[in-house]
């Protein structure tokens, strides 16, 4: 899609201003219902679009992404723009600098339409924990878009942006991509700079693209990947132009199907769609290999120890002192003096929502004296086991395939009061974050529920730093459906 728009921009069939205005028109018409955006940047977007149009008119060489309208999840800093992570504690926060990914998009001339809704601090799988608004799934507005990058996924699926950036700590790009019928990719840990991303769990967080097509994901990833001195765990690997490596040929590639991911408990309609996708890969020339990842059942509890532990430490910075909400309650009862400690307690009590508090407290508990070894160290050991199993599996296969999610988009409120059932939504996605491998979700079919066709994504996980491989395999699949 992006390549085609680029061509139209160059040959004068359209302009960036026209594309940008089309997006804002669509936002005006439909975003009242969908609720994908928290902040719109119309003035700067039109200015940026105009600049690109001028450069094209002057005959300058412009990048594939130049003039293409996009959306950015509200946990990435855009200088001078409100950046809330969908939390009341950052209600008044105006980012003083650009995240590296934002800087990179600006440099190639992408047009930023606005900031998208999300679960508060990216904690959730439905975007219901946003302190501001619900985002609805464009395929069925009675259902959630998934989360935490639900606004970004809904913006792309609802034609309110050409592409979007999301962040993925345990599935937050891939799960909403699956629910909204778009492509979503979590790169290898270290591939994309985290500088300027409001940290959730630093050893798991990665930024990645949400797009209409696999080729678009490759185009966007190529522009945001690369080493960055501002990120302490940035990988020493130059990015490349992934879009130039999509041959669509996967003959002889070996795709592993982990039996633990296809247990009897898997919903039968989801299984049917996934099995058809496996058959399609076979027809495309891939070799399907049954494999075992015996520790898979431990991935979710491991994730729910490590992630909250990192959350509790990362979110300690929101204390009402240097920026964001700050409650100085002189009206506290005369018996309690209102000092520094009370500012911390009050600011965090009123600034954070329920799920954020829950995870900070879980993490605090897991790291506290007497429990550190039993929970945190134990989880980090199991994480090593998981990594070893992946290393072993990748000696035999090129990719690992599964459904992205164990179900299609659910209804609002279905899991909001039951944290454990919400956490299960991440069962197929958390392991890629724990071990660091790249993973992509792409549409593989629909499941019909109450007369509505709801999209389902398939997930390919690849070897560390083999984004090229999974993009090519997903591209081959996508192309075969046309």
């Amino acid at each position, binding site marked *: 899609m992006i390549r085609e728009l680029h061509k139209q921009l160059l040959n004068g069939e359209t302009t960036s201003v026209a594309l940008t205005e089309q997006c804002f028109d669509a936002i005006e018409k439909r975003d009242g219902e969908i609720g994908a955006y928290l902040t719109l940047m119309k003035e700067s977007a039109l200015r940026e679009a105009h600049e690109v149009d001028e450069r094209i008119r002057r005959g300058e060489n412009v990048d594939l992404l130049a003039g293409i309208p996009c959306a950015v999840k509200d946990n990435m800093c855009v*200088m*001078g723009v409100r950046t809330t992570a969908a939390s009341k504690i950052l209600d008044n*926060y*105006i980012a*003083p*600098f650009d995240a590296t990914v934002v800087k990179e998009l600006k440099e190639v001339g992408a047009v930023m339409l606005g900031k998208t809704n999300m679960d508060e601090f990216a904690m959730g799988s439905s975007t219901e924990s946003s302190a501001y608004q619900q985002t609805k799934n464009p395929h069925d507005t009675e259902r959630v878009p998934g989360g935490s990058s639900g606004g970004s996924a809904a913006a792309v699926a609802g034609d309110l942006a050409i592409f979007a950036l999301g962040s993925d700590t345990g599935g937050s790009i891939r799960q909403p991509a699956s629910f909204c019928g778009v492509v979503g990719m979590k790169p*290898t*840990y*270290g591939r994309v700079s985290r500088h300027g991303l409001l940290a959730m769990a630093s050893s798991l967080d990665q930024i990645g693209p949400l797009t209409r097509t696999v080729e678009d994901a490759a185009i966007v990833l190529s522009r945001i990947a690369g080493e960055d*001195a501002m*990120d302490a*765990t*940035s*990988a*020493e690997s130059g990015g490349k132009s992934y879009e130039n490596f999509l041959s669509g040929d996967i003959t002889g590639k070996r795709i592993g199907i982990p039996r633990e991911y296809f247990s009897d408990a898997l919903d039968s309609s989801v299984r049917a769609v996934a099995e058809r996708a496996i058959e399609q890969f076979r027809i495309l020339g891939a070799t399907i290999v049954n494999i075992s990842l015996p*520790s898979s*059942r*431990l991935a979710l*509890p491991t994730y*729910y*120890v490590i992630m909250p532990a990192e959350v*509790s430490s990362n979110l*300690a910075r929101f*204390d*009402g*002192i*240097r*920026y*964001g909400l*700050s409650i*100085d309650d002189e009206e506290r009862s005369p018996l309690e003096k209102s*000092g*520094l400690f009370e500012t*911390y*307690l009050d600011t*965090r*009590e009123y600034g*954070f929502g329920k799920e954020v*508090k*829950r995870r900070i*407290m*879980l993490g*605090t*508990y897991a790291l506290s004296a007497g429990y550190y070894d*039993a929970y945190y160290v*134990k*989880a*980090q*050991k*199991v*994480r*090593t*086991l998981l*990594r070893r199993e992946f290393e072993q599996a990748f000696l035999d296969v090129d990719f690992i395939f599964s459904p992205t999610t164990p179900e299609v988009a659910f209804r609002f409120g279905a899991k909001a009061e039951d*944290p*454990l059932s919400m*956490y299960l939504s991440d069962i197929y996605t958390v392991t890629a974050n724990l071990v*660091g491998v790249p993973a992509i979700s792409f549409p593989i079919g629909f499941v019909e529920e109450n007369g509505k066709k709801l999209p389902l994504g398939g997930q390919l996980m690849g070897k*560390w*730093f083999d984004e090229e491989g999974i993009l090519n395999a997903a591209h081959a699949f996508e192309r075969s459906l046309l």
Partner: protein
Amino acid sequence: MLSREEVKHIAQLARIGLEDTEIEKFRTDLSAVLDSFAELQRADVSGVEPFELMPGVQNALRDDVVKLPDSDERARIISLFPRKEGNALKVKAVF
């Protein structure tokens, strides 16, 4: 099941104020999640080292040199201070 006192203690460590009515809710929620970790407790990890760094990623070190922001960036950061005196961040007394 966590006790009310434990929940209050965790909240204090986490610097989160809690209403009395919330304590019971967090007690149930946190206990349910902690129970779900039972399988983790049973996992055999003898001889396994805790996970440290991702493959291909090294901690980036740099010289410990102060790098000042330019005056615009400095102004943007200062404008975010909830309380200030001149260009100084104002904080309550610790005690």
